[in-house]
């Protein structure tokens, strides 16, 4: 039996005044896309942050490709060494860097040769249909949809081994949301990167997820497989 790509085992993270997550366990197979669904404040974002190493679990363990990256009270592998691409809910595009510079920052940090970077940036911008005319623009000079594409491009440009998407389309109008979701589904199948996708929207789950996990009050309630269209 193939070991899971990601194993979250009994992870707890509490916060004063909010629920946090409690004894959450979750496995993610290679190439699988799991969609996390649940109400606001149920711990979806906290779970992603703990997996990414941006937060430390108080209890439990996290394993990526059979390497323990976090245990109770300790992050054993820093966020930068986990090989994770993350799209934040508010995108977190660096306001002082152009689109090209955002991607170049990631490639430089992941050790990509300088001569190779322009080609890789061009590839990824093409992949996400970001025109070369936008490459020199700053985030505030882009439309909402363009910002979303840039955030996705930035998350995959460093060839991450795991993709975490925290409600990336929540601020978009319905038409754009449907179009981007469809593109992302195609890309996910093309890239075959294991992905956790957080959303409120069950339609997102139906389109994108190989499996849907329901969370409530910091706990996983149901995990069920769904067939992607």
């Amino acid at each position, binding site marked *: 039996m193939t070991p899971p790509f990601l194993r979250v085992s009994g992870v707890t993270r509490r916060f004063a005044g909010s629920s946090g997550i409690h004894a959450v366990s979750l496995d993610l197979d290679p190439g699988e896309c799991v969609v996390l669904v649940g109400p606001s404040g149920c711990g979806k974002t906290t779970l992603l942050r703990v997996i990414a190493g*941006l937060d430390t679990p108080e209890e439990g363990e996290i394993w990526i490709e059979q390497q323990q990256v976090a245990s109770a009270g300790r992050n054993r592998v*820093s*966020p*930068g060494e986990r090989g994770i691409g*993350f799209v934040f809910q*508010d995108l977190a595009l*660096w*306001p002082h860097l152009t689109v090209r510079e955002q991607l170049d*920052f990631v490639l430089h*940090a992941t050790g990509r040769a300088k001569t190779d970077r322009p080609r890789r940036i061009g590839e990824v911008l093409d992949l996400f249909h970001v025109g070369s005319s936008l490459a020199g623009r700053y985030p505030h000079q882009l439309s909402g949809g363009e910002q979303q594409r840039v955030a996705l491009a930035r998350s995959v440009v460093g060839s991450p081994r795991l993709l975490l998407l925290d409600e990336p389309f929540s601020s978009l109008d319905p038409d754009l949301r449907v179009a981007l979701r469809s593109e992302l589904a195609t890309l996910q199948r093309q890239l075959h990167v294991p992905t956790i996708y957080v959303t409120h929207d069950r339609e997102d789950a139906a389109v994108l997820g190989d499996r849907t996990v329901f969370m409530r009050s910091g706990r996983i309630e149901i995990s069920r497989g769904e067939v992607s269209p």
Partner: protein
Amino acid sequence: MMAPMRDDVWGWRSSRTALIGLALVAFAGFCIAPLLFLVAGAFALSGDLRYGDVPLLLDIRQRGLLSTTTVFGLGAAGVSTLVGAPLGFALARVTLPFKPLLRVALAAPALLPTYVVALAWTYLVAPIAGDWAYSVVSAIVVMTVVCYPLSMLATEVALRRVEPRLEEAALLVARRGAVLRRITLPLAAPAICAAALVIFVLAISEFGVPGVLRVRVFTTEVFTAFAALYDVRRATILALPLTAVSLVTAAAAAILILERTLTTRRGLAVGAPVAFDTWRRPALAIIVCVIVVAVLMPLAVLAVEAQRAASIVRAVQASQRAVINSLGLATIGATMVTAVATFLAYARVRAAHRTGTVADILMIFLFTVPSTVIGVGLIGLWNRAGPLGAFYGTAAMPVVGYLARFIPVATLAIAAAMRSVPVAHEEAAAVSGSGWFRTMTRIVLPQIRTGLLAAWTVSFILAFGEVGTTILVAPAGESTLPIRVYTMIANAPPGHVAALALFQSAVGLCPLMLLGGALASRDTT
């Protein structure tokens, strides 16, 4: 910036119109009119400014003044930033014990009267270094002691306002050092540069430090032209280059600050992801050193010198009238400044984006106009026949000076606090039937009471130490404590002067410590 409130929420017939209108009239009368009068007067006095006064502005003596003023301004801005920015970084990104108290102690020199620090410097350094104690380099050092807190606080706020998500996104692929260099510092840089520009303008506008250290710069020349030579024309024309430089630099600083607000979308971050707690010990050691050098040493020097006076109490008693005048006038001045500034701040925060930007530039510019220039403008405006002239020559003129000098800075401070009150709070009060005045007093002002208290305290301390304007507009025989100290420096025993300076510093620092204590109890970082 907050969205402007819809006009139809309150309407023109509400009390808002009357109160903001009154505040704007006060602002125009006290802050704008003296400068307009000064500029108009310069042209009227010279007849033909272009040809008649070029020699006055460009002769070799003035070129020397210009060069010394520039070196003083650049030096103070550069060294203050070199000292203040790392301290701000330590406060923002290193976990330190008693951080709120350390912050208050580090900020204290900004509220010491500048000429008091200069006086302490002469007592400490002149016996060792002789004339060097009275050089432009010494003036830069003293100005750094007073101004580094501005750079420190600007840096700390800028670093704490960097959106944590931006750093977290970078931390997923890069080390902390690279994130600091490529993401954090570039985002904080505009605010640090803006603080440096403001310090530059404050330095070239400074009167107390070059006055005590006998460094000839434009501000001292303006004072000499007016007070010693009685040459109003010369004083007025010499004030023009300073005013122009203040305006240009204030505009640059405001644009940089505006750029900063565009790049942030949230309040102060708690628990920044890029922290440097391994630097805790060296940071703490440096902070303690700075507190000793910049706060304790000047006060200790003054205390030692004051012991040579027969009695500190007797020295203060001998200046009792000046002390009472200062306390009373500073209290009245701070209260009036805060009242006017509150309504101006409301108008600024609820104004449209472009109007608000222009208002920011104007306020920063007015704050940086040299005190002696404001003094000359006030004299020109108020010293005339009629009702204004009847007022001129009364003990109330120093309060007019305080209003002219400190309404802008109080407005900026209160506006910063008022931005945190959502427009929706007002709208909710409006739909529930509350009038504007009641909404202000019951909904808006209670939410910013700490900001109002801080603005009053800072206005009081600044007014209590003000010398450049009041020395020009105070009526004969009516002295304030700063005027008395400043005039006694040249012709009274050092112990006596030091005793008064020490008393003045104590009165300034006490409310700061109380305010700091109140803020510290609210600060959980």
